């Protein structure tokens, strides 16, 4: 499964990259503020610029292997490209760029459609690079500790930790059951394959629930009252970094205001 391979490697880099020792609050501040500014910016130049900033930070500074980052980018960017080509071809209004007339139908490609498609593609690229910066440099548990510090409701953090655990539990039990079925020749032909899949799907839910309930009982017996204790020893944010990020944000906002009206792909 694609998730198992890429997900596990992302998790490993999150703990071992060169920025792992930096305070997660700083990284979260950088990723989220730049994400919001670049997605909200009216001109596509800002997300384009942000994409390269994140590329440089991840490859040169955090030392994420380039081929792995490329592999992560490939799928979402390919889907985005395809979608944007379709937007350019079928959407938009106003001034037309090109008209194709055939005996059966006539087809107009609009300037605004193409502009919209280019802007969308660059916005997706910029947004995804911010998301990847956060994921590749910051482990999920650090983010959850931060959420606890800013007093996000306890039940939300508890549910996230439990769901996070159960996703892996579900996958693990599914693969165990699949192995058991294979060993008993459960997947030899088409009919037995369907039968095995139905059995697996039905039992998977109950088996996972029962294992989860046993864990829950065991935790309750050890004094669990809704709060999962995690060691809160995150490094503190450095002042100069936070100020630097704020300056960068102001710069991005100014740049996006200045370029807001001045851009057009096709003149």
């Amino acid at each position: 499964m694609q998730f198992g391979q890429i997900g596990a490697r992302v998790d490993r880099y999150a703990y071992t990259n060169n920025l792992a020792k930096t305070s997660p609050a700083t990284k979260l501040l950088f990723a989220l503020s730049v994400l919001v500014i670049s997605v909200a910016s009216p001109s596509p130049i800002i997300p384009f610029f942000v994409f390269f900033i994140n590329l440089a930070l991840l490859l040169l500074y955090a030392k994420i292997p380039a081929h792995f980052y490329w592999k992560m980018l490939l799928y979402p960017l390919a889907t985005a490209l395809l979608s944007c080509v379709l937007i350019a071809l079928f959407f938009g209004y106003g001034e037309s760029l090109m008209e194709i007339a055939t005996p059966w139908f006539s087809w107009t490609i609009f300037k605004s459609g193409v502009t919209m498609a280019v802007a969308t593609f660059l916005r997706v690229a910029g947004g995804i690079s911010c998301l990847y910066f956060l994921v590749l440099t910051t482990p999920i548990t650090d983010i959850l500790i931060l959420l606890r510090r800013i007093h996000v409701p306890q039940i939300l953090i508890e549910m996230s930790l439990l769901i996070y655990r159960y996703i892996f539990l579900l996958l693990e039990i599914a693969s165990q059951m699949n192995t058991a079925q294979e060993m008993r020749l459960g997947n030899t032909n088409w009919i037995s394959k369907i039968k095995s899949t139905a059995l697996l799907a039905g039992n998977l839910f109950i088996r996972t629930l029962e294992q989860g309930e046993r864990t829950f009982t065991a935790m309750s017996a050890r004094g669990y009252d809704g709060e999962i204790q995690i060691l809160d020893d995150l490094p503190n944010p450095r002042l100069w970094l936070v100020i630097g990020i704020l300056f960068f944000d102001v710069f991005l906002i100014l740049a996006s205001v200045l370029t807001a009206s001045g851009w057009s792909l096709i003149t």
Partner: protein
Amino acid sequence: MHIMEGFLPSPWWELWTIVMIPVVIYGIYRISLVTKNNPKTKPLLALVGAFIFVLSALKLPSVTGSCSHPTGSGLAAVIFGPAIAAVLSMLVLVFQALLLAHGGLTTLGANVVSMGIVGPVVAYGTWVICKKAKVPSSFGVFLAVALGNLLTYVATSVQLALAFPTAAGFLDAFAKFGTVFAVTQIPLAIAEGILAVFLFDFLVKYKGKLLNTIGAVNLPSALTRGN
């Protein structure tokens, strides 16, 4: 139906985020009420969340800046009600954005509105009506989950059509997005409905008592056995 990070232009992603917030806050209130009264529901809640995660990760890419997949949130709505389904969907969508780059943080609002609010509300409404009409429960679950899934995609089409207008207006854009989705979504909705019926029957059989205490089903006590 996950709209990818950055795909929605500016007024729209902010708008959907604002729409999402009150519903999620109400859902958090509901979830803390349920878990306070019955701490034993926590594993079931987390499992339903994980189920939503796994089902909605089984995606077929679609050319609309989005993708087609079962949602899983319909079953959550049938068991726990739509508000809790919205919270579970939000948590799952954040995980998917962070772990799989599937969906995004700025488009979180739009995705929660379609998968966590519109779909579950429709599923729950259908389920309540079916219960009132004394339709057999398996058919009720099937109808609720399948309709919840389909309406999720209608909601996504509306969101995309609002953001990407065409010359012929909103309805034309809506029809374009809707057609692309309909090809893959109708079979997927039926498949998800069937899967939900199996899972619901399993749950009633083995965890009937738990479902009874949270009010998902009203079974005579003779039928609820075991834990």
